[in-house]
């Protein structure tokens, strides 16, 4: 119970300038509210880690929070490119962005190794590609039994792991279900962790598939619809119109900056942003 707090406190306590921050959620349960709070508290020089940096990281990158991106697929799913991400890469605006780029398989092994307390993980992968040319986190290893050469990837151990889950119980244990992604590994690999949840329940029911005990979760914050515009299985659907609208908003620096100002800097929390954005998109 001592880990249940406001999202503002959770971010203030756990996310510092220069940290390596992993925000996960594979199309499902993406922690948008936590991303907004990091922008609101103006964290800088973050090393952002995420398999699928989509709109949530476009916002953080465009707002100038990031110095490096560790990832495997960056796009606006079903819509197109991430304009803020591309402008950071192509034009170093609002600042330069280093890339440490992998495959999904490689990233998931890096997280699993981190969650397991191992310095590296092994996979059959990366061969015949240019992926290994621009990263120092993929090397070769020889099987001590068969002599086969395999890919070794360095473990990911972020300073902070951030996810959204459907539920917490009153002890601060966290439960989620539906598409599971790499969230369990992201939390277990991280030194500290923040979980936003839809609600606090007395008891988890059998549909809950992953439970993270309170003693591996630094902070739990109740943020209803905190994964919007992504979805929370059993709570609400994906807001596809928001993703489409983002293409327009993010295309222009000034429109983007104005949006960040209005929706994040000038609001005190995520519910104020939701109140602005949801009615206008409700008709779609």
């Amino acid at each position, binding site marked *: 119970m001592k880990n249940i707090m406001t999202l503002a406190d959770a971010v203030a306590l756990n996310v510092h300038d220069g940290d390596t921050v992993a925000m996960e959620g594979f199309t499902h349960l993406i922690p948008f509210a936590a991303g907004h709070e990091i922008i609101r508290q103006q964290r800088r020089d973050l090393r952002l880690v995420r398999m699928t940096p989509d709109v949530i990281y476009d916002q953080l990158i465009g707002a100038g929070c990031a110095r490096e991106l560790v990832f495997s697929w960056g796009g606006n799913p079903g819509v197109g490119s991430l304009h803020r991400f591309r402008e950071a890469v192509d034009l170093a605006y609002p600042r330069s962005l280093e890339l440490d780029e992998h495959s999904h398989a490689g990233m998931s092994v890096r997280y699993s190794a981190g969650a397991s307390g191992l310095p590296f993980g092994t996979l059959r992968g990366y061969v015949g590609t*240019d992926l290994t040319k621009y990263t120092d986190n993929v090397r070769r290893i020889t099987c001590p039994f068969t002599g086969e050469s395999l890919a070794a990837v360095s473990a990911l151990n972020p300073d902070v792991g951030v996810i959204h889950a459907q539920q917490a119980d009153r002890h601060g244990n966290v439960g989620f279900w539906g598409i599971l992604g790499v969230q369990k590994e992201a939390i277990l690999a991280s030194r500290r962790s923040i979980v936003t949840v839809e609600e606090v329940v007395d008891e988890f029911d059998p549909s809950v598939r992953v439970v993270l005990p309170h003693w591996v979760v630094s902070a739990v914050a109740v943020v209803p619809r905190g994964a919007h515009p992504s979805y929370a299985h059993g709570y609400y659907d994906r807001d596809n119109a928001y993703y489409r609208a983002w293409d327009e908003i993010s295309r222009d620096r000034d429109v983007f900056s104005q949006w960040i100002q209005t929706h994040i800097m000038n609001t005190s929390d995520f519910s104020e942003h939701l109140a602005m954005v949801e009615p206008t998109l409700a008709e779609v």
Partner: protein
Amino acid sequence: MTAETVDASATSDYTADELMTIVAARELNNGDVVFVGIGIPSTAANLARQTHAPDVVLIYESGTIDTKPTKTPLSIGDGELAETALAVVSVPEIFAYWLQPGRIDVGFLGAAQLDRHGNLNTTVIGDYEHPKVRLPGAGGAPEIALASKRTMLVLRQSARSFVDKLDYVTTVGHHEGNGSRATLGRAGNGPAIVITDIGVLRPDPVTDELTLVSLHPGRTIEEATAATGWPLKIADDLEETTPPTLTEIEALRRVSAR
């Protein structure tokens, strides 16, 4: 299964994407275990499942195994994929336990650029550090293409997409050709077919070079050659693609409708 009347009469009322999707769907055998990317691969796999291949097993990298969505999903992580799945596993598990050991019959991918050996680029156009166009990156493709028993590729054919030399190799196909893929370690057999808006290409059994084996109705060798950034090999027994049937088109539109 409800009995449906099959109308095998050809139609010319279709888009290029619809044709590509239908040709791709035909390539899937009933019972194939297919690791599906989003877009045409996903639509084609669902079309196959709802027509000639009801027992095709669809796996998405979001960890959903044997999903049976009623409509083509918009993203690889749509809620319906989890709801209709036989099993949902974590992303690390789907890659480690299901893809990597070679359990997947067909890896089904799109790409931005392709070379004559079916290697793919989905990372950058131009120089990596100073790109002309920054693309999304690798995603699941490198290991899907490595581990699946065979790979099917779907992309529009143009001088910009079918290039002599990739700006960046994101995903290996037949590597440098002439069986060189086999030197990369334990892996599946690589690209078996490339389906474009102009025709169908398959690798030469000796050199692994992609060869035009079929032209879609109304398309010409000249169009195919002009849309290819290397001197395109044409099969001696070049065929014409069987046009979509009314049944196929109707099934496709049912699957795609939202």
